[in-house]
């Protein structure tokens, strides 16, 4: 059996808010793994730290404890907690995708260009990148009349599809998904579920948080239940 692509060991995260002089525990002692062609789902009540785990892996949050071992395309294993900023940027460019709930984009850039951009930074020509962006956008069922405008003014569901198309376009080795169908109507959600299954079949390892337990049941090969956070005193032990 091939070893997992991602192995999270005793991951912990807390925020220290200087102004309020307050410690906010966010994840505590989280361990699990994700393998190629398989989907691991994180479940638990709101505020339990699901998004924070995804952000810690992507290094949008600086982890406070534990190890996040990632096996790259060459088979090298590195700890994402300790990897250099340039290593992280390079992995984000080539191997690790993240579909967040929010989209940051230039006010003038067309939706087509927003989606094509990750390909451009990999050296794909503009024409081909736009072509592939168009394919993903139609697969997401985003009306063609919206392709030439900026997503800045889109509805939540439209933005979400742009975000998904942009996350899927490089077919990352590891894809992090934070409530990817939360603001979609049932028919569109169904399409997105189909696309997730397709990418998984092609070998992408996925770590996801879903809004609906039923989607988790359908898509997850493995479910990780995050335990409620311990009191602040427990989180403080991470320091020791």
């Amino acid at each position, binding site marked *: 059996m091939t070893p997992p692509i991602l192995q999270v060991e005793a991951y912990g995260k807390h925020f220290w808010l200087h102004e309020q002089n307050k410690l906010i525990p966010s994840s505590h002692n989280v361990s699990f793994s994700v393998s190629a062609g398989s989907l691991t789902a994180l479940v638990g009540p709101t505020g339990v730290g699901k998004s924070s785990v995804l*952000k810690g892996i992507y290094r949008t949050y600086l982890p406070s404890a534990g190890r996040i071992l990632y096996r790259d395309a060459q088979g090298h294993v590195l700890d994402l907690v300790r990897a250099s900023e340039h290593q992280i*940027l390079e992995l984000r460019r080539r191997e690790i995708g993240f579909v967040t709930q929010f989209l*940051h984009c*230039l006010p*003038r850039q067309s939706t087509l260009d927003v989606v094509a951009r990750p390909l451009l*930074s990999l050296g794909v020509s503009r024409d081909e990148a736009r072509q592939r962006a168009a394919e993903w956008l139609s697969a997401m069922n985003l009306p063609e009349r919206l392709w030439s405008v900026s997503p800045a003014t889109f509805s939540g569901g439209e933005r979400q599809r742009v975000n998904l198309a942009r996350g899927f376009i490089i077919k990352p080795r590891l894809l992090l998904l934070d409530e990817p169908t939360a603001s979609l109507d049932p028919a569109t959600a169904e399409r997105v579920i189909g696309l997730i299954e397709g990418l998984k079949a092609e070998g992408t390892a996925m770590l996801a948080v879903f809004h609906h337990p039923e989607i988790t049941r359908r898509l997850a090969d493995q479910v990780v239940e995050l335990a409620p956070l311990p009191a602040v005193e427990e989180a403080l032990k991470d320091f020791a």
Partner: protein
Amino acid sequence: MNKILEVRGMSKIYGPGCPLCIESTGPEADTNLCPHCGSVVAIHDVSFDLFEGEILGVMGESGSGKSTVVKSLYFDQAPSGGEAIFYDRDKQYALFSLNAAQQRWLRNHRFGMVYQNPHLGLNFNISAGGNIAERLLMSDLMDYGAIRERAKTLLARTEVLLARIDDLPKHFSGGMQQRVQIAKALATQPPLLFLDEVTTGLDLSVQARILDLILEIQQELKTAMVVVTHDLGVIRLLTGRAIVMKYGRVIEAGLTDQILEDPQHAYTQRLVASAL
């Protein structure tokens, strides 16, 4: 990926300086003005790396030393201390040990600068095209026809109407002046570009087009850039990594999304919270 610029311990003090300047200034002291000798410690102990094709953000409030960082690297003023190494193909240059002629050569051939104040970056007494021609001449292109053609291409690239190539910059809008500055900076296709508050003070739609242009340039030419701005939106859109400055010191450095979503330093937390 290769390193293009390495800055170590760079500092700049305006004024006579005294042995107490450093300990009496900075974020802890809450000032950049030395109470003992009246000198301004504009920057102190600034260090960072920049890789080929990368965009690094320099953020911080007014007076924190952002412009001083890029002006020192572009040889507008000599720093008081520290060093910077520029890696250019198979050569490397210790920037602050070079003589004036060598510095001028790098500035004209390998670096580009877009100033916060267009009066610093453009000659207001000659036309837009003339400004670009001037830079091409400094970089040894001599043929008049070729210069004019290149100027046209650059102005078209930066979306300045070609009909206005012979107009004086003072007759241009702020957004157009910045685009002429960008065209001028790009004339020699430098591998390293410094951008100081390029979009500050412009209205939103003009800002968006300039940001867009900068990203296109970075993708097409793989230009490495240091982008100075106090606008967190610009930082998020353009940069992959950033440093945060306060009273001349770098107080935090990291991946841009991390600095904005999980800032570590008390000051950065306040800065980010106040921008929400």
